[in-house]
Structure formats: C-alpha cells, structure tokens
C-alpha cells in the first residue's frame, strides 16, 4: 500500500478482554513506532522497533502492554486485561530515515480507536 495501514479502525472491548492491534508499515521501512493518543491530547511514545528488534519500550505504561514485530515488517500491539484508562487512539508510524532523520521522515497511520467499556 501507499501508506501505513492499521487495523481495525475501531475496537470496542469489554473491561478485562485482551486486544490485538495491527500495523502494516510502508514497505521497506526499517523503523516502526507505536504511540498512544488520549482524547484531546498529543500522541505519547510507547515503543520503537528497528527491523524486528524492539530497541525502546520505555513508554509502555504497564506489563499488560506488549508489542512485537517478528519478521521486521508487520507489528502487533497487544493489550491484556484491558482497563477503561486504556481507551485511546493507538497510532503506528514507520520511517525509512536513519539517525536524526528517523523521526522527521516518519509517516503515521490513521490509528485504531480503542474504547474499553
């Protein structure tokens, strides 16, 4: 595809349910990021992959959050035992940039809106 694709676009989960959010980055992009965006707020960094290696997971809010990118392409963000405070838009971004250009050349997907009821 031409851009970063995320699925599903919308997800409603009952509290305590596990969810999996998918990100298809732009083909060939080495770097992949996940962000969490609460309503009315700016996105907040969750985790960063370079190929299949998760180089930074400092933004994951708890051990209920887990991300993987096993083949260095598609990534999945999994949230276990969802809670109401997990309700947010989860954004994925990918980049072909290197060094200091990794972030300035990143493209964002449309996000998955997760609502926990």
């Amino acid at each position: 595809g031409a851009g970063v694709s995320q699925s599903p676009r919308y997800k409603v989960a009952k509290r305590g349910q596990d969810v999996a959010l998918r990100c298809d980055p732009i083909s060939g992009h080495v770097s992949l990021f996940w962000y969490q965006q609460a309503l009315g707020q700016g996105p907040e960094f969750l985790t960063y992959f370079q190929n299949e290696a998760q180089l930074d997971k400092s933004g994951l809010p708890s051990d209920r959050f887990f991300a993987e990118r096993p083949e260095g392409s598609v990534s999945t963000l999994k949230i276990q035992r969802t809670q109401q405070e997990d309700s947010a838009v989860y954004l994925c971004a990918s980049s072909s940039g290197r060094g200091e250009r990794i972030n300035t050349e990143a493209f964002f997907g449309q996000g998955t809106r997760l609502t926990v009821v």
Partner: protein
Amino acid sequence: GESVGLHLPTLSVQEGDNSIINCAYSNSASDYFIWYKQESGKGPQFIIDIRSNMDKRQGQRVTVLLNKTVKHLSLQIAATQPGDSAVYFCAEIRGGKLIFGQGTELSVKP
C-alpha cells in the same frame, strides 16, 4: 516534568488571513522541532521541521520560527484556507523520541 506545550488550545481565523500558532517548550536539549497537522480521524501529518541551530525555516505557505532564548516555537500559515482546519501539534525530538505538545485546534471561517 519537562514538556512541550501550547499557549492556546483553539484559534479561529478568517479565510485568507494569516495564522500564527505558538508553542512553548521547557527542555533546551532537543535537536529538532517538528510541526504536525492532524485532521479528524487521521494520524499526524508532517508539515515542517527546524533544527535547533536555526531560527527560521520556510516551506510552502508555512514558516516556522524558533526562539531559543525564550524557548518558543511558532508556526505561521499564510493565506489560511478551509483545508487548513485541523489540530496542530508541535513536537520535539529528544532522546530519539517524539515528544508532542497538547495541540491547538485551528478553525478557518469562510
């Protein structure tokens, strides 16, 4: 903690006027600052960036100004159009990560 924040949450302008969106930051150790546009239901879209060793950079209809003395960043949009209506975020790159501010909602009146 340190953060990137905005002065105004909303801004309403008349079509054709110039818009100025402001951003204050508190951490002087950032290498880059970026402005993003986010339309409803979409992800942030890169508009323009500026390195910390610059004070001005121009793009198509947009200009970013950086004042490191007062830790202030602004985005100027010339001849604002209805398609410019969106939420605008400033962000800094610190420690290899994007740190976003809260955002300003720009509304363009026809």
